[in-house]
C-alpha cells in the first residue's frame, strides 16, 4: 500500500509537468511563411478600425472634421470652437494611440522581413516579402503624415521597440515626420505591386504610395516655403514626378461614386480604408481586437443619425461651403441636401450617407476614401503652379475636375486657362479643393494649415463669420487659440504620451 502511495506520488510530481506550452501561437512559432506574414499585414490594416469606428459612442471623427471651415456643428466640441483643446482630450488621445499601434505593427513586420533571410526556418517568397514590406512602409507613412498634420512633432519610431530601456523616444524636430514618410514611400514605390487580384483589392499599391509620397512632398514644400524656397521648389518638382507616375487612375464619371458603398475601390481610388461588417452579428461596442463579434465598421452617424449619435449634435455644412458652390453644380446633391423641417440649420450632409449600404449609420461598410485621384490632380496643379510650371497646365488640371463634376451638364464651366495671375489660379485651386473634397477625411483642416504656413492665406484674420471659419458656435475662439499656440496651430501632445514620457517637449499653448 505504502509503495503504491509513494510511486503514485512521485510519478505525478515530475517537475516537467510545469513546462506547459501555450494554447495559442507565439511570436517565436510564427512568421514562417507567406500566409503568416500576410496575416500580420492584415492585422495592421485592421487596426485602422480604431480611427473610424463607433468607438463606444465616442467616435473621433470630430478631431479632423470640425476644425476646418467646411462642416460645423452646434454641439460643444472644442475642435469646432477652438475653445478647450487640452492635452487630456479624449479624441486626441485615442487617435494618438491608434496611429502608434499601427506604426508598431508595421515595425514588427519590417523587423521580421529583415530577419527572414538569416532564418532557415522561414520560407517566404521574395515577392511576398517585398509587397508586404511595401505595405508596412505605406501604412507607417500614412500615420506619420497624420501625426505631422495634427502635432508637427511626435516621437519618430522606425524600429520596433523591444525593451523597457528604450521605451521613451523624444519628439521629432523640424519636418522629420514628413521626411521619414517620404523616405519610406520612396522605397515603397519600388517594391509594391501595381495592382492586386480582385480578392485583395484595397491593399496599398505602387500608385497609392506615389500618391501619398507626392502629397507629403507638397505638404513639406508648404511648410518650408517661407524658410527654404529652393527646397520647396525641389519638393514640388519631386511631387509632380510622383504624381506623373500614377497612370492607371482616372476620374470616375459619377462624382457620387466616390462615396457610395457600391462603388468602392473604383478607378479613381488610390487608397481607402476597407470598412467591413461582420458576416454575422457585429457588436458595435467591441473594438477590432476583441475577438468574436468585434467591429470592422466605419461610422457616419454624426452626419444625420441623431439616434445613434446619442448626446451628440450632428455635423452639417457651413454657410461658407453652401455659398461656395455655383448653383447647379451636381456635386451639391452628392454633398448636402436642404432639410424640409429646417433641421441642421437647413442643410444636411449626405456625402458618404447617401449610398451608405447595408446596416447603415451605426455600423457601416462604406469605406472612408483616404486618397483619390481628384485630390492628386489638384495637388499636382498646385505643385506645378508653385514650382513655376505651366499655368495653363495647372488650370487644365482644375478643369479636369470641373469637367467630371458637371458630367453632361454645364455647371461648373471650365476656368479660363489663359489666366496668368498665380494668386488667382491658387485661389481657384483652393476653392476647387474646398468644393471637391469637403467633408472628406483629413482634407480641409490640413489644407488650411499648410496654406497658412505657405502664406497663401492668413488664418489669423479668420473669425466665425461666413467668409472665415463659418462656425455657428458663439464661443468660437480661434484667434485666441492661434495666439496661444504661437501661431503654430499644433494640437497639444496628448497626456497619454506626456504622462509617461518626460522626454517629450510639449507644443506651445
Amino acid at each position, binding site marked *: 500500500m505504502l509503495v503504491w502511495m509513494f510511486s503514485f506520488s512521485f510519478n505525478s510530481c515530475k517537475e516537467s509537468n510545469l513546462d*506547459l506550452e501555450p*494554447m495559442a501561437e507565439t511570436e517565436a512559432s510564427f512568421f514562417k511563411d507567406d500566409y503568416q506574414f500576410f496575416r500580420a499585414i492584415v492585422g495592421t490594416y485592421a487596426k485602422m478600425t480604431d480611427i473610424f469606428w463607433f468607438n463606444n459612442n465616442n467616435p473621433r471623427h470630430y478631431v479632423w472634421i470640425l476644425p476646418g471651415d467646411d462642416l460645423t456643428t452646434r454641439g460643444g466640441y472644442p475642435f469646432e470652437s477652438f475653445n478647450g483643446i487640452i492635452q487630456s482630450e479624449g479624441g486626441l488621445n485615442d487617435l494618438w494611440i491608434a496611429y502608434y499601434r499601427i506604426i508598431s505593427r508595421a515595425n514588427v513586420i519590417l523587423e521580421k522581413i529583415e530577419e527572414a533571410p538569416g532564418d532557415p526556418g522561414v520560407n517566404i517568397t521574395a515577392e511576398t516579402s517585398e509587397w508586404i514590406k511595401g505595405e508596412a512602409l505605406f501604412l507607417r507613412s500614412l500615420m506619420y503624415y497624420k501625426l505631422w498634420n495634427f502635432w508637427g512633432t511626435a516621437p519618430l519610431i522606425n524600429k520596433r521597440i523591444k525593451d523597457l530601456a528604450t521605451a521613451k523616444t523624444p519628439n521629432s524636430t523640424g519636418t522629420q515626420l514628413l521626411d521619414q514618410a517620404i523616405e519610406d514611400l520612396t522605397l515603397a514605390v519600388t517594391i509594391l505591386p501595381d495592382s492586386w487580384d480582385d480578392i485583395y483589392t484595397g491593399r496599398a499599391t505602387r500608385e497609392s504610395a506615389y500618391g501619398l509620397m507626392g502629397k507629403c512632398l507638397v505638404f513639406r514644400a508648404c511648410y518650408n516655403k517661407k524658410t527654404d524656397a529652393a527646397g520647396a521648389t525641389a519638393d514640388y518638382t519631386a511631387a509632380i514626378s510622383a504624381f506623373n507616375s500614377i497612370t492607371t487612375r482616372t476620374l470616375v464619371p459619377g462624382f457620387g461614386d466616390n462615396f457610395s458603398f457600391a462603388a468602392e475601390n473604383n478607378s479613381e481610388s488610390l487608397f481607402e480604408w*476597407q470598412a467591413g461588417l461582420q458576416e454575422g452579428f457585429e457588436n458595435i461596442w467591441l473594438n477590432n481586437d476583441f475577438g468574436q463579434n*468585434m467591429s470592422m465598421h466605419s461610422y457616419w452617424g454624426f452626419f444625420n443619425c441623431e439616434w445613434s449619435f446619442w448626446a451628440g449634435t450632428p455635423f452639417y455644412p457651413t454657410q461658407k461651403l453652401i455659398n461656395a458652390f455655383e448653383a447647379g453644380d451636381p456635386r451639391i446633391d452628392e454633398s448636402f441636401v436642404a432639410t424640409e423641417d429646417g433641421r441642421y440649420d437647413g442643410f444636411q450632409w449626405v456625402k458618404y450617407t447617401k449610398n451608405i449600404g447595408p446596416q447603415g449609420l451605426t455600423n457601416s461598410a462604406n469605406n472612408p476614401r483616404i486618397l483619390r485621384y481628384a485630390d492628386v490632380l489638384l495637388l499636382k496643379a498646385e505643385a506645378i503652379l508653385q514650382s513655376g510650371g505651366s499655368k495653363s497646365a495647372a488650370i487644365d488640371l482644375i478643369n479636369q475636375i470641373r469637367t467630371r463634376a458637371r458630367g453632361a451638364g454645364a455647371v461648373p464651366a471650365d476656368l479660363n486657362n489663359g489666366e496668368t495671375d498665380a494668386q488667382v489660379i491658387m485661389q481657384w485651386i483652393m476653392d476647387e479643393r474646398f468644393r471637391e473634397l469637403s467633408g472628406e477625411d483629413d482634407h480641409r483642416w490640413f489644407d488650411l494649415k499648410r496654406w497658412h504656413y505657405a502664406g497663401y492665406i492668413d488664418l489669423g484674420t479668420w473669425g466665425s463669420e461666413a467668409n472665415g471659419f463659418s462656425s455657428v458656435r458663439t464661443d468660437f475662439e480661434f484667434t485666441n487659440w492661434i495666439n496661444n499656440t504661437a501661431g503654430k496651430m499644433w494640437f497639444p501632445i496628448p497626456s497619454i504620451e506626456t504622462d509617461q514620457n518626460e522626454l517629450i517637449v510639449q507644443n506651445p499653448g
Partner: protein
Amino acid sequence: MKLSTLILILTTLQISATGYSQNASLKLDFQTGTLSDLIQAIETQSDFRIFYKTDQVDVRQQVVLSETDGSIADLLSEALEGSDISYQVLDRLIVLTTTSAGNQQIRITGTVTDANSGEPLPGVNILIEGTQQGVVTGSDGGYSVAVPSATSVLVFSYVGYNSERIEVGGRSTIDISLIPDIQNLEEVVVIGYGTRERKDITTSISVVNAKDIGNSLSITPEMSLQGKSAGIFVESGGGNPNSRPTIRIRGTNTWGVSDPLYVVDGIPLTEYGSGAEASQGAGADWNQAAVTSDIRGNMNVLSMINPADIESISVLKDASASAIYGVRAANGVILITTKKGQAGKPRIDINLKRGIQNIPKKYDVLNTSEFTALYVESYQNNPDEMPNFPTVFDATSPDYLGNSMTYDWISPMYRENAEVSDYNLRISGGNEFTNYYVSSGYSRTESPLIRNNMDRYSLATNITTKINKFLSVGVNYRLTYQKAQDATPGELTYVAGASPWQPIYSLDGTGVNGYEPAASFTFNPFAATLLWGPETNSNVFGAASTKDNRYTNLRNIGNAYIEVEPLKGLKFRGSISADFLNQVRSNWNLYEGEIFNQTPSDWSVYGDGNSYGSVGQRDSRNSNLIKEFSVSYAKSFGEHNIDLLVNAMDQTYNFTFTQSSSEQLSSPDPNQRLIEEGIKGYSSGGQIKNKNALQGYLGRLTYNYKSKYYFDAVVRRDGSSRFAPGHKWGVFPAFSAAWRISGEQFMQNLTFLNDLKLRAGWGQIGNQETQAFAYLSLLGRAPHTTFGIDPLNPGRGYFYWGIVAGNFPNPDLTWEKTITTNFGIDGLLLNSLNFTLEYYDKTTDGLIQSSNLPASVGSQQNPIVNIGKIKNTGFEISLGYRGKVGKLNYSANANLTTVKNEVIQMYDNAPMGDEWGGRIEEGYPINSLWGYQLGGIFQSEQEVLDYQATTEDKIATSQHAGDMWFKDVNGPPDENHRFYTPGPDGVVDNFDRTYLGKTIPGFFYGLNFTIEYSGIDLACYFTGVGDVEKINGVRASLESMSSRGVNQLSSVKDRWTPTNHSTTMPRAAAADPGANNRFSDRWIENASYLRLANLQVGYTLPKFNTKVFERARIWVGGSNLFTATQWSGLDPENEAIPIPRTFTIGIDASF
C-alpha cells in the same frame, strides 16, 4: 429480568456454585454502547442471565470493552470499572448492584444541550466533584448519575464550552445548557494541513464556525465572514445572487489580483478568470479583462458550496499561517472545512427557512412637468445650445410632451417580496470504525430586481472508515447544480433617468408582449423614427420580454485519501482531489425586440433576412486535479512536543470555453431555439483554452516546551507553470514563535488571568496571479479586416483574419512577494473576557505590474514587470465577553481592524489610472480618488469676473453665475517636477487633478451580541466600515442637468437660480459650458456605514416533545434592518443592486 423474579428463582432453585462459573470464557460481539446494550449482548451471545434493580442500576451509562474475549469476570470488570456498579456471578446468573445501594443515593437524570443552538451535546463529562465518579452523556445528550447527597456538586465539562458547576439540591432532574466558548483554549482550529488547539496557535488565524455561518442568511459562505473577525474585510456583491463579494484580508496587497486563496477540505479552488486576466485595474488590458469577464459571466462559484455543510472557516491572515500555501497565499487563505459524521446513532438535522427581501429605498426623480421645466431652463441658460433645443420640450411645438402624464420607470424594476428559501437535510452518524455524513439542500434566491434569480441543489457525502489500527480511508464528494437567470433589463440608473413621459406598457394593446415600442422603422432602406423624439429611451422592459440569459452550473468536488499509521504518531497520507466545474450559459434574443431599442438595428440583414432572432450557448469547463502525499509525525519527549509534516503536491488545471451561436432562428417557438448546424455565415463557433500547473513541497516543524514556549517553522518550495524556465521555482519560508507567559510560575498568582500569550511571526509568501505565458510573446488572433469586392456582398468584401504580434514578453517575470511581520497578544481574563491585539505589517515587493509605457511605443498590451511595492499596516483588536445572570446567558464580541495602505513604488515612478477608475500614485493608497477640487458656486457674475481675473479655467468653455468653480492647485511639469508642479499657476487644467480620497476603508469593525434565556435566544450582528469614500456615479449622471432627456434626481429642484442661491447644486445648463460635471469631489461621498446586518430571535421547544424530535428551534430573523450612513444613494456598499432587507422565518430540528 426484574429482581423480584430473581428472588423467586433463587428461592425455588438450589443453586450450585460450580458448573458454569465466572471463569467461563466467552467471546462477545460488542465494543461500545450502553450498559443495557452490553446486557443484551451477553444474554444473546451466552447462557448468562443478568438481573438488576432498575431504580438502582442505570443501564443507560456508556460502557466500553477493549478486549472482547475473556472470562465474564474480566469483561464485566472492565465494563464497570469506574462506575458504582458491582456484579456477582451466580452460576448462569449475574446480579448487578450499586455499591452505594442502601446509602440513600440520589439519582439525577437530565439532558445537556448547547446554550445557543439548543442541540443536545453527546459526550459531555459529568463529574461528581471531589470524587473520581462520573458519567458521560449519550448521543441524545441525556445522562443519569447517582450522587451521594443533596449537597453534591456536578461539574459538567465539554471541549469548546464553558464548564458548569451545579449543586444538586433536592432535584432529581437537572437539564443544563452549556455555553460555547469560541475562544476556548482547547478548541480545535483548522490551520491548513492539520489542526491545532487554539492555545497552541502561534500565527494569525480567525475562525468562523458553523453556528455563525448558520446565522448568516446568505446562500454564499463568504458573507458569513462579514464583521465576524478582525482583519477580514467583506464587501457584499449586492442583491444579485450571482454576484460575488469582495474579500480583502489585511488590506489590499496589489493592484493586480488581491483575492485570497480558497481551500475547501484541502482542495485549493482554481477558476478561470480569477487571476490577472480579469483584472480591470490600472494598466490592465481592457480587452482581455472584458473578454474574461464575459466568458466568466456573472457567477459566484463559491455560492456552489452550501453554507449548511460548512463546519468552520479558518482564515489564515499572516505569512506564518499561510506560507504553507506558498505561491498562492500572499492575499491570505480561506480554509473551508465541511461537516463530518460523528460516532453515535444516526442523527438527522433539518433546517428550513423562508423569507422575503426588498430594497428599502428608491431613487426619487422628477415628474414630467418638473423634468420639462428643468430642461427648458437648462437650454435657456446656454445660448449656444438653444438651437439644439428639442421640440418635445417646446410648449409652442406640436411635438411638445411636457403635458404628458408621468410614468414610473423605477418600480417595475423592483421585484416586491423576492423569495429567499433554503431547505437542508443532513444525516450523519457512525461507529468506532466508520463515520458518515450525507446532506442535501435546495435553495432559491430571487434578486430584489426582476428577472434575476438562482436555484441551487446540493448534495454532499462524506465517509471515513478505519480499516484497522493502521489504515484508514475516506471519501468526500460534493455535487452542486445551479440554475440561474441573469437578465435584469438594465441598470437602475438607466430607468431612473428615463424620460418620465414615455410609457412602458402598451397604450392601445398593440405593442409586442404588451409593451409600448420606442421606435418604428422601415427596412431597406433602413429608416428609424423614435416615437418619443430624441429623448426616447429604450423600453428595456419590452426588450427584456424578447430575450433571456440563463446559466446552468454543475460542480463536482471530490476527494479521496488513504492514511497509514504504522507507528503511533507517524502518518503517511496520500490523496487525490478533483474539482470539475461546468458552466453553460444560454441566451436568445428575438429581433422583434428592436422596436424597443433607442438605437434599433436593421435586422433584415441578419440571417437570411427571415430570421426570428438569434440564439447562443457558451460552455465553460474548469477541471482541477490535485494529488498530494504527506508524512507527519507527532511525538512528545517528556515536556518537549514535536510535530513534523512534509508534503508534496501537484496540481493541474485545464479550462476549455466553447461557444456557438446562430443568428438564424426559423421559429420563435421556445422549443426550437436551437443553433442549427451548417448554415453558412449565420452560425458560428469558437474556442478558448487555458491551462496551468503548480507543484509544491512543504515542510513544517512545530515545537513546544511545556505548552509555554512555541516555535513553528514552515518552508514551502513552489513551482508554477506561469513563469519562464529558470523562474518557475521559489522558496517561501515563515517562522513564528509564542510565549505563553501565563504558564510561567511567576504569573500563577494572577488568578484573574487565565491565559496570556505573546506571539510574533515573520514570513514570505507569493502571488503568482499573472497572465498566463506573460514570458512569451503571444499573438493576438482577433483583428479582422476585409479586402476585395465581393459581388455578392457589395461594400463588405472578403474576410481576412489577422494577427497582432509584438507585445513585450518578460522572460524574467516572477511572482510577487509579500513579507508579513506580525505581533500579537492573546489573553483570557476572569474566564470570561478574551482579547486579541495584533499589529501587522505586510509589504508586497516585486509587484506584478503592467508597466505603463508611453503610447508611442504602440504596444497593444503593456509589458508585465515585477516593479511595484505596496505596504499595508494596521492593528486588529478582538474582544469577547461571556456572562450569566441567573438563567440568562449573554455574550458580546467586538472586533476592529485598521488598514493603512500606501503605494511605495511604481514602474518608472509614474502614476496610473484615471478619474473614474481609481488612481495609483506613489505615496497614496491604491485606487485613490483623484480629480478636481471643488471650490464653490459663483453667486454672481462679479464673482465670475473676480475668479477669472486670477485664474483661467481651461476645462470650462464659459462661466456664469450659478456655475461651479474649481481650485487651482498645481501647474504643469517643470525641470524639478516630472508630473505636475505643486502650487497654483493661474490655470485650471488637467494638472489640477489631485488626491480626493481613498477607497480602501481605513477601518472596519463588527459587533455581535447574544442573549439566551430559558429557550429563547436572541442574536444580533452589526458590521461597519469607516474612513472611506466612494464615487456616487448615480448622482454624477442624475444631477448633471446637462444631457438631453435624462431624468434627474429630485435633489436638482434645489439648483442654483437667480432667485435660489444654492451653494451646493449648480445651475442647469445644457452641454455644461462651465464643466460643472467634470470629475471632482462633488461626486465623492463618505461611504462609511454601520449596519445592523442580522438580527435573529429563536425559541427552542421544551423537552416534552422529545418523542418526536430531539431538539427543535423556530426562529425569525431579519438582515440589513438598519443602516447609519451619510451616503446619499440607495446603499453605501453596493449601489448597482442594493443589498436587500430580508425577513426570514426558519425551523431547525434534529431527530
